[in-house]
């Protein structure tokens, strides 16, 4: 099980995807696959998008650290185009998201269920701040008013590197999954490739949960 090591480093440094401290983190390479078009939540999307047309990004490298008060996810993936411009209807931005289950058995592919909701952090290249979302099944994504998530992103050499950070605990555990040093963190990931018109459920995702131990 990959570790989330504790680094006695301040937030500003850990937020930087280029910071040297990231070399000390366990690297997990995850294969991604296209989301199933047959499960998209509208007839229009199911019937007019071909399975092969989405899911351009096929791998994601994940490193996670914490510093005792915040947890940091560094996500890196290949993407030859830097899509940050959404000034026209046909332009979509690159993005990445991390998903955490509130309970033990939340289904991944449906993004939770009414009984087993999930929590996501969604970074998009055109936005200043990431969203925090809660979801209880496909088509129910809800952006919470408070995010608590911060991000820094770098695109160079045809790769994105994005660090997402949040306090281990927040005042609102119903909308933000709490993390406890000494425990485990279960997460899944997805990536949107903007130049392939990927948005909403059209993306590539890690089809299984990855479990990390959060070092005390």
């Amino acid at each position, binding site marked *: 099980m990959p570790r989330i090591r504790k680094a006695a480093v301040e937030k500003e440094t850990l937020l930087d995807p280029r910071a040297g401290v990231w070399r000390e983190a366990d690297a997990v390479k995850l294969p991604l696959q296209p989301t199933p078009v047959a499960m998209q939540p509208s*007839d229009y*999307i199911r019937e*007019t998008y071909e399975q092969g047309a989405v899911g351009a990004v096929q791998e994601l490298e994940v490193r996670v650290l914490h510093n005792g008060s915040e947890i940091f996810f560094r996500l890196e993936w290949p993407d030859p185009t830097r899509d940050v411009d*959404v000034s026209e*209807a*046909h332009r979509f931005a690159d993005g990445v998201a991390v998903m955490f289950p509130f309970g033990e058995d939340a289904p991944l592919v449906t993004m939770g269920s009414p009984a087993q909701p999930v929590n996501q952090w969604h970074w998009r290249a055109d936005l200043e701040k990431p969203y925090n979302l809660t979801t209880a099944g496909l088509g129910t994504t809800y952006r919470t008013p408070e995010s608590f998530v911060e991000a820094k992103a770098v695109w160079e050499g045809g790769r994105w590197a994005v660090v997402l950070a949040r306090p281990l605990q927040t005042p609102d555990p119903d909308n933000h999954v709490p993390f406890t040093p000494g425990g485990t963190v279960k997460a899944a990931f997805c990536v949107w490739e903007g130049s392939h018109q990927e948005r909403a459920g059209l993306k590539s995702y890690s089809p299984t949960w990855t479990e990390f131990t959060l070092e005390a």
Partner: protein
Amino acid sequence: MPVAPLDKQELIQSDRQLAMVLDLNKCIGCQTCTMACKLLWTRYEGMEYMYWNNVETHPGRGYPKDWQRRGGGFREGRPVKGDLPGLDDYGRAWEYDYQGVLFEGRSPNIQPDEDEPRWGPNWEEDQGAGFYPNSFYFYFPRLCNHCSRPACVLACPRNALYKRKEDGSVVLNEERCHGYRFCIEACPYDKIYWNAVRKISQKCIFCYPRVEQGIPQACAAQCVGRIRFVGFLDDPEGPVYKLVEKWKVALPLHPEFETEPNVFYIPPLSPPRYHEDGTVSDEPRVPIGYLLWLFGPRVREALDTLKRELEKVQNGGRSELMELLEARSYRDLFKLDKSPNPRFNEYACASCGVAQSCTSPLKSRLAGTATASSLRVLNGSRTSSGTRTPT
């Protein structure tokens, strides 16, 4: 916490359907409807290029360019892929070089001060098709069709769009919209717009805050040609029922898109074509083939009815249809409720959207029985609709 998804069938059902009929024989292409809508709803940042109502010249490529060939809607019941127009398809807004011309002597002509414009909301005005003496065109006002089978509502993965129960207007909940733009793809009329500043889609709301006050849509109320009729489709006393159901002269645009529009058009009659030797033919100047493409096979019957009723009046007879289309009184154009609406006398003033500060001497005459309290009602409805304040 998240909300459970609603059933799409639930979202597209309404108790009643408000509808609009536009008589293309009377449109003079003045764009007053366009401006009435623009000033009321789309004059904010990110909405510069949005024309929830626009008037095109047909035949033409329209706004956005080639919208009739960009997909969307349904074919034999199945959704058809649509595309997403870019700003070049709408035409990028430009400023004129007033400073250079008026104060710096740069050019004798007022010209766009940046790139040469290549498209715009009324780019092909009066261009039309055909050759003299058989050239032809007509004006074509367009807005959201508030369809009974709205492709946009059915496409949205967020259920951000729905039909209002009380009047069937298709509206977009900006708080649910996450800017995924499947609605823009799915609308075969290209009447949903991307707001790149707010990162949401936006569309015509059929002026529901006005309708709720018994006042017709701004585009309809302001129409100087009196071409627009508004009423509920199930109200046999209303003008829309009479034109659509009784006389069957008002037809949906591109019925082959299968979205069941609730905006209907009375097709244009036209003078006869000339033969090459200068004699007059039996064929109308606007080719029937073109009208069949726009309105489907029922257009023949509609044109025949219009001609028959017109001849009746020309021969000294009377015709309910022609009297309705003449629209001598504004009261004949609009019927928003089953009972006569007491505010009808006031709408002429209310329609301008600046009722409170208006100082026009026409105001009191047009407003008839308008009272301070009725104007307060109007201003109240505008305040509740968002950030708007009276100008």
